[in-house]
């Protein structure tokens, strides 16, 4: 792979928790701009650690991680918020703020960037339409279904137009129909140019979508296939 094509470049990356557990062991992984990638593996395989490392939540013990040309392993604490603005994140439990309506939840990501109120209104409106939640702007998270809440979370993750979307078990709390809807939405984001990385347990989704699949086991990368399937 040409070095310039690499959006995410992980070389010999090891990550250790304070108790000494090595959750990622000399991981080598290269992700191109515009790719759609599944990261699968059983519990304790290092999937969550992989996401947390890319989010800058865990320090890299050894090796190097480069994201969009920025060295994550050398990044100072104060630089991390600015780095995270280049990412969109979606979680299994949606993580919307219950005391704010859907518009305010999505607008928060733009408020952090200091975007003007009128532009926020326009951008949030566009995102709501994109994820099919037009007319739900004033609703509170608890008034929406799980699928709708995850759509709102995707809208929040994407409203700042990040280059990378990280999704940690995005269908974990959804029924099969809603899971498919969410995956279609992520595929749509990918089609529009965003690099999408999905950590999942959902074998059905992985097998059907025929995307690149990276398998982790005990912190090691055991398989990396273009159009792969789910392997435990």
């Amino acid at each position: 792979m040409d070095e310039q094509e690499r959006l995410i470049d992980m070389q010999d990356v090891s990550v250790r928790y304070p108790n000494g557990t090595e959750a990622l062991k000399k991981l080598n992984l290269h992700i191109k701009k515009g790719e759609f990638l599944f990261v699968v593996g059983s519990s304790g395989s290092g999937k969550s650690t992989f996401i947390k490392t890319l989010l800058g939540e865990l320090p890299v013990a050894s090796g190097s991680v480069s994201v969009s040309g920025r060295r994550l392993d050398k990044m100072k604490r104060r630089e991390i918020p600015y780095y995270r603005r280049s990412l969109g994140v979606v979680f299994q439990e949606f993580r919307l703020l219950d005391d704010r309506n859907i518009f305010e939840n999505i607008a928060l990501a733009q408020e952090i960037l200091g975007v003007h109120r009128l532009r926020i209104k326009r951008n949030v409106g566009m995102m709501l339409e994109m994820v099919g939640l037009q007319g739900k702007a004033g609703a509170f998270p608890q008034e929406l279904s799980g699928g709708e809440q995850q759509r709102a979370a995707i809208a929040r993750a994407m409203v700042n137009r990040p280059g990378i979307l990280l999704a940690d078990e995005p269908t974990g709390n959804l029924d099969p129909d809603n899971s498919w809807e969410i995956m279609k939405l992520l595929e749509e984001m990918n089609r529009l140019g965003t690099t999408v990385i999905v950590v999942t347990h959902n074998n059905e989704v992985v097998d059907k979508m025929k995307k690149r699949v990276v398998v982790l086991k005990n912190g090691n990368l055991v398989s990396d296939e273009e159009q792969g399937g789910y392997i435990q």
Partner: protein
Amino acid sequence: MRTLCYGLKQGIKNIGQNRLFSLAAIGTIAACLFLLGLFYVLVSNFQHMVFNAESAVGVTVFFDEGISQEQIKKIGEEIRACKTVEKVVYISAEEAWENFQKEMYSGEEQISDTFGDDNPLKDSSSYEVYLSDVSNQAGIVHTIEKMDGVRKVNSSGTVADSLGSFNSLITYISAGIIVLLLLVSVFLISSSVAVGIRVRKDEISIMQHIGATDLFIKLPFLVEGVLIGLAGAVIPLVLLGFLYQRIVGFILGHFSVLSRWLTFVGMAEEFRVLLPLSLAVGVGIGFWGSFSSVRKHLRQ
């Protein structure tokens, strides 16, 4: 600027949403500042009364027999030049005799009339020296005794020493209690904010994930802390002002016989210190309490 607006809006919203915690924190600060104000008012009034009592404790300086008026004047100037001497009053021999007659022969003028124009106290002209701090009385007495032309110095050393020591004791005790109360306030506000942060742990974590800077996350909590501190300072000030007027009015109205000793500091004078002090302490502990709690949480 937008971050500041967001912080203000969200901080005010947070107070409303966490009504119970906010009320608990306001109550805590208000209670501590009320006690602080109460101590301040008590101490300042006590000191005021002690100062008045101290002012009444004078030192009397008598001169050698046959001393000239010029020498007396010179002694007066030397005494005035001493530190902590607040006032020097000259009592002539005639005034001394008049005062003596008033005190001793009031109503029995026929006895004093037997003296005619003769003044038995003709060599008893004196200076009455008043000090700003009676704890220095012994030193001043010693200095005056050494001056040329001074025959005798009368002083009430016991009263001066007792008042001086008692005043110092009260100042130290009240300063200690006030510092203790401030520490308790800081601890309580910091605990209240920490509880508030625990409740909003998820919110902070979400904001961190979507790229919020520490300042952006801290600002609403700081606004919240400052507003809580402000409210916690204003409430006891209003209460103290109201109570002070009522209580002083009641004492002066019902115990007029004690009015010679019970002299109170005016409310405007009390609040000239208490108002900025309470506001600064309230806002300060609100800010510091929330700042330390948020910083601790963000560092975890």
